[in-house]
């Protein structure tokens, strides 16, 4: 079971809300799809500047592996107030620890409800249906 202290977008981004901010990241499933567990196959992750405002579903960045490029979509609405600078030089943390060290951006929420997102159980069911 994936962490149930956060919620998920169908495109595999997670949002962990704390007060009026949320940390956003990408699930282990999506990372694995890109690099098959081989963190050396990740080549690039493009993240936004702080200050940018995001709508739900808006593309805020891109992640690229040797094989493919994928969009990063925002699960929440708000303003980017912090970007995980460690990712640029240490892409491997996205693979080794997608839930904690591998957070991508911190967003100050302008819409605090995240009821449009699915919970861990529903996310697991969605993955089970896809496989």
């Amino acid at each position: 079971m994936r962490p149930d202290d956060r919620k998920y977008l169908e495109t595999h981004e997670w949002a962990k809300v704390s007060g009026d901010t949320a940390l956003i990241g990408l699930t282990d499933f999506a990372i694995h799809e890109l690099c098959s567990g081989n963190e050396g196959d990740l080549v690039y992750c493009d993240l936004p500047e702080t200050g940018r405002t995001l709508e739900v579903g808006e593309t805020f960045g891109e992640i690229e592996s040797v094989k493919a490029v994928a969009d990063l979509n925002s699960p929440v609405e708000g303003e980017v107030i912090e970007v995980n600078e460690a990712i640029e030089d240490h892409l491997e943390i996205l693979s080794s620890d997608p839930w904690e060290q591998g957070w991508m951006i911190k967003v100050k929420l302008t819409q605090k409800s995240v009821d449009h997102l699915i919970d861990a159980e529903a996310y697991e069911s969605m993955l089970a249906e896809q496989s």
Partner: protein
Amino acid sequence: MKRTPLHDCHEALGGRMIEFGGWSMPVQYGPILEEVRQVRERVGLFDLGHMGRVRVLGPDALRYIDRIATNHCERIPQGSIRYALFCRPDGSPIDDLLVYREPESVYLVINAANTDADLEWMAEHLGEADAVIEDLTASTTMLALQGPRSTEVLASVCSPGDIEALGYYKFTTTSVCGVAGTRVSRTGYTGEVGYEIYVANDDARGVWEGLLAADAAVRPIGLGARDTLRLEAGMALYGHEIDPTHNPVEAGLSFAISFSAEKGDWIGREALRAAGAAPTRALVGLTTDGRRVPRRGYGLFQGDEPAGEVCSGAVSPTLDTNIATAYVRPELASAGTRLEMDIRGRRQAVVLCDLPFYSRTRPKS
């Protein structure tokens, strides 16, 4: 999805299976970049069961193939192999292929994704020719052993002397891992010394496992690394450097096209002659210092002016940079030209270079 006789072996080895040309094939067993290095530095084993294998028999077999293929097949010596293409009357390619000259027949190795189209095209143009087309794809399979150590490893499981004596683009019959009468050709798609091995389905597993066990240096390699290896070596891939809108002349494949009078007329001859006389674009290599990997379809620009388009791109562990092939306007097609690549709305600087990026025999100047 079709499966090769080695499907279970790939799953047991942890291969990540993907759909390729209608087949379930291993794209990688571990990191793709390590698999590329493995082949450049040591030796790798590939399952190529998805490739189409076709034999044409009968008194008119060679003349018939010469009428539909670009190379001069009647001049291929016995036991030798040549690269060729099938083209439409307008010069657009249907597929590229290897032609093996056998004593009484011609053996063709074609692309998985094009096998059905090729067979259809071949049947359609058989006409009055006294020849029979046999599709051997389902009953046989194909492996490749590639890399600087491939000769010694393969020789250790074959009849003595057979592999050492085999010249480039030649084939022979030998015993491989105890399977007598096995065809081996010194061919490949990696730019390294290497061999392709043709076996009946029932023998596939024994040969695959025998080769993996022959030397601790042998590792299985997936299609992901194979694509990078062929791109580093400047080899065309159907659907990328050649496709219905990119003819083999502009793809730099004129070595596989014969306009000789002896060959006579063939399908696409006039169109390809005209294409050679008035090129509208040229295939080039490019490298980029940026981290983004060039990919098929990315546009190239000189300022605001469109300059061309990327065909294939990869992270090249051999060159330690990102590489690509691209079509550009002929006047831009010289090494050192600086352009910009549009990556999903952003620009990254690229520099054009000659192909291939990597040659085992020609040191890069």
